[in-house]
């Protein structure tokens, strides 16, 4: 009996080191359908690090899981305002850029944005804007200004976004205010504008805007650029423009959470994603505008810049602002939105 016990114990001790040989892994948390699956396979082949990949639907869901310490992830890809919030709450760690040489591929125009002023915590993955998607057959002339959305000729021919933050932001721009404003007077102006516009709006939609515009049910629509790219690929009649007054620009950026277990693996993965050929592969799959200049060279600048989504004029881009994290002021926006929606 004693001999068997000793034998088993020594066997266990000998086998213990085998656990250390278990494959290195990193945990990645990203939006759904937001990476070319081949990229993960290639990373595993090149580095031998296994990628445990999970997806989330909204920034708030991701924040809930991370803030409450439910899971630890090594790489996450949230949106701008959420990164701002997470930096304030010390949920992210600074990235050691020396371990990520490929960050040089990122267009400097898109670094040091307001949500991460010295680009210490994040590197952009994709970016996009809000603008007007219009049907070239159904409009008299191509829109250039947000005032097209107040034009009575498009009565019952325009679609607006059913999203408090986004639509109010555009209304703030149209009334000459800062799109991150929480000043009740500014928001009152925005509210009155949207109430004035309401009888002309065909519908307030979110996802349905794509199918409706492709089917030609409306002439103009307020959309995000990602949806615009999809619509334009399905219909030759559609085109996209960012109005000259400026708009919202958004970023989905790659970060490392403060409680990441495998920081070196995370850095290798971020470096991999910033590689020109990998970012180009991702662009082919996801379709959103990318901040990676090396990738754009590989795709071909002409082909990439042919889309109005990817290559807006620099003057317009300069007038585009990133959303700030509003914190408790979000309630103010929701309140105003409820007043607009319930208006008859």
């Amino acid at each position, binding site marked *: 009996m004693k001999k068997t016990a000793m034998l088993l114990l020594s066997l266990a001790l000998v086998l213990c080191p085998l656990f250390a040989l278990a494959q290195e892994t990193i945990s990645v948390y990203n939006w*759904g*359908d937001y990476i070319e699956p081949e990229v993960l396979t290639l990373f595993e082949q090149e580095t031998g690090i296994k990628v445990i990949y999970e997806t*989330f639907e909204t920034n708030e869901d991701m924040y809930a899981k991370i803030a409450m310490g*439910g*899971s630890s992830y090594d790489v996450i890809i949230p949106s701008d305002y959420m990164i701002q919030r997470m930096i304030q709450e010390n949920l992210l760690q600074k990235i050691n850029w020396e371990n990520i040489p490929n960050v040089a591929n990122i267009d400097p125009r898109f670094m040091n944005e307001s949500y991460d002023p010295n680009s210490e915590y994040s590197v952009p993955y994709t970016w996009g804007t809000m603008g007007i998607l219009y049907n070239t057959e159904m409009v008299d002339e191509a829109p250039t200004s947000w005032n097209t959305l107040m034009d009575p000729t498009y009565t019952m021919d325009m679609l607006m976004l059913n999203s408090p933050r986004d639509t109010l932001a555009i209304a703030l721009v149209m009334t000459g205010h800062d799109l991150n404003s929480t000043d009740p007077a500014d928001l009152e102006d925005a509210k009155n504008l949207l109430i004035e516009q309401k009888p002309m709006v065909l519908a307030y939609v979110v996802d349905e805007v794509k199918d409706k515009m*492709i089917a030609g049910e409306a002439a103009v629509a307020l959309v995000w650029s990602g949806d615009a790219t999809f619509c334009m690929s*399905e219909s030759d009649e559609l085109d996209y423009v960012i109005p000259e007054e400026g708009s919202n620009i958004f970023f989905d950026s790659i970060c490392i959470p403060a409680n990441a277990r495998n920081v070196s693996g995370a850095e290798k993965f971020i470096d991999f994603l910033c590689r020109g050929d990998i970012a180009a592969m991702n662009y082919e799959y996801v379709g959103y505008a990318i901040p990676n200049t090396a990738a754009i060279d590989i795709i071909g600048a002409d082909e990439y810049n042919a889309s109005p989504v990817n290559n807006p004029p620099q003057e317009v881009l300069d007038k585009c602002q990133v959303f700030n994290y509003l914190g408790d002021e979000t309630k103010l926006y929701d309140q105003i939105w409820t007043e607009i929606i319930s208006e008859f």
Partner: protein
Amino acid sequence: MKKLRKAYIALIMAFLYAPIVLLILYSFNDSKSRANWGGFTLRWYKELFSDAAIMSALGTTLSIGVLAAVISTILGTVGAIALYQMKRAPRKVLLSVVNLPMLNSEVVTGVSLMLLYAMANIQLGYLTLLLSHVAFCVPYVVLSVMPKLRQLDPNLAEAAQDLGATPMQGFFKVILPDLMPGVFSGFIMALTMSIDDFVVSFFTTGSGVSNLSITIYTMAKRGISPKINALSTLIFACVFVLLVGLNLRDFRKDGRSQNKLNEVKIPY
């Protein structure tokens, strides 16, 4: 009057099934958008089977569904019998506690379970997902079995023992067969709730384990690919065949004459 009744039923059926019919139709559409009909194609089905993420999510959903349903059926049935034997006051209290997961908002259940696992230092993954599913499925089983218990002849258990059965034999050969309809419907309820669940699963899973609901919901930002339509069509076809099979079996078992006896005539 009969025509009106038939028309009304047809309308209700159309209302219920029109979305599903459209869903199936668009799974054969050779275009990503619902606005264009691009032609008949089977490519979404081909892409579905080569999509590793969706296939693994499907496997997780089915395995968690069956396991959670089995475990919660056993726990629920045993629990219901225990509850039935209790005195009035403790039974009412415990029944309310058992019903809590059903009454609570799913977000509340999900987040509190996540906090529980974090406190107990359990790594989120397949095990936590399974435990959470069992947790919210048990109330449905208890609720299905309790009415059947009330319908039981209270003397059955004693009669069985009188005739020489051990308590275990009495339970398995006498009580359980009588409870079977309730147990079975509880199992089906638990299976359905588990397969359908998103919120609780989202907050209590980790380590790369994802079920179908999570995979589909998180595609929302980018738009749902017709691959999901293909998957839904296949699931619908399986469930449909299963239901038709079960009902045909019942039909043949009862025989037509018995059906006529139970039929209540409504005189219009």
